[in-house]
């Protein structure tokens, strides 16, 4: 029925994945899992306002402490400078080569017409504009911390 509309075409997981990555949305098991906190993942909006101060939920100890004094690592958008995509598992280093994080989702963003990624970095490296290096096939590629989303949202939350 939908496919009878000339503007509707079937898509697969690749399209779904590039779209949600450009929109800055987490994929569970990749960008968030049982080790990440909502504060690290920049998802504090998902915790009710009262609970953010009063607690009263599983994991409140860690979450409240991270809200108060900041998390150790943060989920950020990452824009590789060249054309080479950096995929999940790519090691992120500072300019001295020290590992400071890891890419949790990465690929090619058709809307921005270039590679895009997201991942976790130590909090000191989380500000947009911070220079990072991505280790892709043993080569260090320059990248920058980028604000999320990469492409403007067209949906209501």
């Amino acid at each position: 029925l939908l496919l009878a509309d000339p503007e509707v075409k079937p898509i697969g997981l690749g399209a779904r994945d590039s779209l949600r990555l450009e929109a800055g949305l987490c994929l569970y098991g990749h960008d968030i899992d049982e080790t990440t906190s909502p504060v690290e993942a920049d998802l504090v909006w998902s915790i009710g306002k009262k609970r953010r101060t009063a607690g009263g939920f599983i994991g409140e100890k860690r979450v409240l402490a991270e809200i108060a004094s900041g998390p150790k690592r943060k989920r950020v958008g990452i824009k590789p400078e060249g054309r080479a995509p950096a995929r999940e598992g790519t090691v992120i280093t500072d300019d001295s080569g020290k590992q400071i994080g890891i890419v949790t989702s990465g690929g090619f963003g058709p809307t921005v017409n270039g590679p895009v990624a997201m991942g976790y970095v130590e909090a000191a490296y989380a500000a947009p504009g911070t220079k990072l290096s991505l280790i892709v096939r043993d080569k260090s590629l320059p990248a920058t911390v980028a604000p999320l989303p990469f492409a403007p949202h067209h949906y209501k939350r």
Partner: protein
Amino acid sequence: MTKRYTKDHEWITLDGEIATIGITNHAQEQLGDVVFVELPKIGKAVSKGGEAAVVESVKAASEVYAPVSGEVVEVNGDLEGDPALVNRDAEAGAWFMKVKLKDKGELDDLMDKAAYDTFLATL
């Protein structure tokens, strides 16, 4: 020389002792939109079956294996600025590299077009 093919979906043609290597149209179709190609450095020694280049599509990164051993003498710079050329013209304009052959005998166990088509039909 007529074009020859590998089971890893590379093609190769020979002019004197210089072989031109690319990926097949079937490979291109399977990859989907190609967004990045990493080519070897000129002068790099490649060995038959070894990794020679990387092609990345929206879906995944894939290795391109050298169908023969030799030394890379030229790479197709057009692919850096226009990786989608691989989708449009995989078996001609979007060649990846030219390799100076070490051993022409290595070509013997590659497939001709008919054998490759038969192989594709089994996939």
